[in-house]
């Protein structure tokens, strides 16, 4: 099926933004929660400290901002692209997060996860070669 180059470019851009904001949001939340430290929610005071820590953390607010931008881009791209195209393509987040976590945060990534990252990339590549919309009316 032919799909206008401009629309394909628009779709790729939005999916790239989804991956960027989704990955950044998750990584910022992770950084914020690690700064707060291990959570003990056994007591009411523990819960209060947890919420105080969460809402006073700049990292967590930036993470929430990233995830809101992720949601906005997800909604916008679905106004023309197939859900069955966008959802698997957006799964690139699962490949980017371990990669960035390893490179920037020095996290250890198990070999099984690297295999998963590779399989996701192949899957996203296959989906990416199909037409972004199969229901679009000209």
């Amino acid at each position: 099926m032919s799909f206008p180059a401009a629309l394909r470019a628009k779709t790729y851009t939005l999916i790239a933004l989804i991956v960027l904001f989704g990955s950044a949001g998750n990584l910022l939340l992770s950084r914020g929660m690690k700064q707060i430290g291990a959570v003990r929610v056994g007591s009411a005071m523990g819960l209060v400290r947890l919420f105080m820590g969460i809402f006073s953390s700049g990292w967590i607010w930036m993470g929430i901002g990233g995830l809101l931008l992720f949601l906005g881009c997800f909604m916008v791209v679905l106004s023309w692209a197939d859900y069955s195209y966008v959802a698997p393509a957006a799964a690139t987040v699962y490949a980017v997060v371990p990669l960035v976590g390893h490179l920037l945060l020095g996290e250890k990534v198990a070999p099984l996860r690297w295999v998963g990252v590779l399989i996701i990339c192949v899957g996203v590549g296959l989906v990416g070669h199909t037409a972004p919309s199969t229901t679009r009316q000209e």
Partner: protein
Amino acid sequence: MTIRTAIFLAITVLANTGGEIAVTRAMKDFGEVRNFRLGALFTLLGRAFHAGWMWLAIGLLTLGFFSLLTLLSWADVSFVIPATALSYVVGGLGAKLLLGERLSPARWAGIVLVSVGVALVCAG
């Protein structure tokens, strides 16, 4: 896997996928976004939250979230999170049956690979 785990896993996957399909349905009703000025985008997203489909989506995604939390209260996270990668395959079926999308063999193959890959990343 117990019957209780299977039921809650099914609720989690179906509610999350159903929620995203409802978001898609809501956004398709608005038509293709062509104006990317920030003000126009905020107006559109604001209007989207007045659509019935969007409220159905919020309801389903909330159900999916609490079903996941409930599931995690007794089942192992190393089983639950990878198992929710089934959502991609269920989403493909939902997109075909409920949104009328035409999924080629290449797209199906990609969806299955993404499901397997996400399950491995979450299990690793």
